[in-house]
């Protein structure tokens, strides 16, 4: 019988010993590490597979649900079309920046409004079947997340990204909503021209469609 430390264990502990346990502990066989590495490499692959399966199941069930939930137009792809009226009215005035939206494996591009402010609801279906809505607020020089259906609201607390303050923010020019799998990135008009729309896959440019 040995007494434990008075702070942690005031009563005597039977066989609490372990003084014979020396550091470093028992050597672990390398095969075990190989097995764990294999498991780690299988995990992301299965995640990708589950995602693609969910994406394949998406088109059947989306449209009605999206319309009644967010009162956004047609379907997930067409949801990009609700741009601010200012941008569509005078397309000649060039916006100061663009917002790249990465959501459920797709890339969307949203120009900042040339004047006035606007909110853009991004509606999508997550791989687990639930429907998420992110309300993105756009001003001529900045963007922030106004409303979100995620549980922790980290994306709202990340504040706004302007064309100037991205050097001081820890997340740079990004706003990330991890539960809804949405990443917003604000880039300036020069960067947008430098990248070129052709390098960004098949982006949706709502102002020109």
């Amino acid at each position, binding site marked *: 019988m040995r007494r434990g*430390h008075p702070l942690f264990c005031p009563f005597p502990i039977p066989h609490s010993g372990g003084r014979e346990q020396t550091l470093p502990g028992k050597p672990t066989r390398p095969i075990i590490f190989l097995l764990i590495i294999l498991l780690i490499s299988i995990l992301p692959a299965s995640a990708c597979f589950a995602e693609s399966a969910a994406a394949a199941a998406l088109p059947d069930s989306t449209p009605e649900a999206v319309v009644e939930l967010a009162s956004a137009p047609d379907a997930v792809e067409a949801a990009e079309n609700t741009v601010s009226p200012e941008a569509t009215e005078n397309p000649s005035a060039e916006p100061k920046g663009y917002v790249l939206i990465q959501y459920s494996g797709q890339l969307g591009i949203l120009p900042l409004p040339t004047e006035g402010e606007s909110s853009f609801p991004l509606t999508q279906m997550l791989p687990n079947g639930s429907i998420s809505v992110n309300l993105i607020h756009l001003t001529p020089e900045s963007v922030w997340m106004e409303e979100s259906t995620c549980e922790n609201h*980290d994306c709202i607390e990340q504040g706004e990204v302007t064309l100037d303050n991205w*050097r*001081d923010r*820890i997340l740079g020019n*990004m706003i*990330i909503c991890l539960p809804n*799998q949405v990443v917003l990135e604000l880039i300036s008009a020069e960067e947008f021209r430098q990248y070129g729309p052709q390098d960004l896959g098949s982006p949706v440019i709502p102002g020109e469609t």
Partner: protein
Amino acid sequence: MTRKRDTTAKKVARFGLLVALSLVLGLMDRAIPLTWFLSGAIPGIKLGLANTVLVYAVYLMDWGSCFLLMLAKVVLSGLIFGSLTAILYSLSGGLLSLLVMLLVRRYPKAGSLGISGLAAASVVMLLIRNPHPSGQMLWCIILIAVACLASLAVFFLLRRHPDFHVISTSLSGAVSHNLGQILMAALVLHTPRLLVTYLPVLVGIGAVVGWLTGVIAQRVMKALHHLP
């Protein structure tokens, strides 16, 4: 755990106790709002008190029990608190951190030296991207530099004090947990740029928080006479 005189009943009892303890500590992690202190600048960070249980297990149990404990903790806490994606993130982080902790238990110096190298690399990377930091970024770079120096100190103190063995393990476990989670996030979100912007910050935070939990784990193990 692996001692000869341990009966099966004793093993089961201790395993259940550790799983329950890690679940309760996970609940406490959620109760301590670390993001509020940092005004939402760094999303998704927590103290990681549940990691102390895993550090304890790495030293006193065999690898199979450690793996089972991690799996039970991840799945149960995911089912209780979070969603399916939360399980995915914490499973990738937990697997990587367990692997690294088992390795660092054997080679403690490599662990702390590697973490300090990682932190130094993150500082250099952030300074290259942004040569004149200000505001949040400045504090963040200072934090990562402090973390780098702290893990370097652990490396040098390891020669004299065996106590720092546990801290080195906890340090590298926390950082690799962050690494696994951010890798999974980059994969799920299809944004590899996340690795460039967010990973350096997470390395610094992980090292600081890992130091704290390492001190806790070391004190507990010493108090229970599990350490010389």
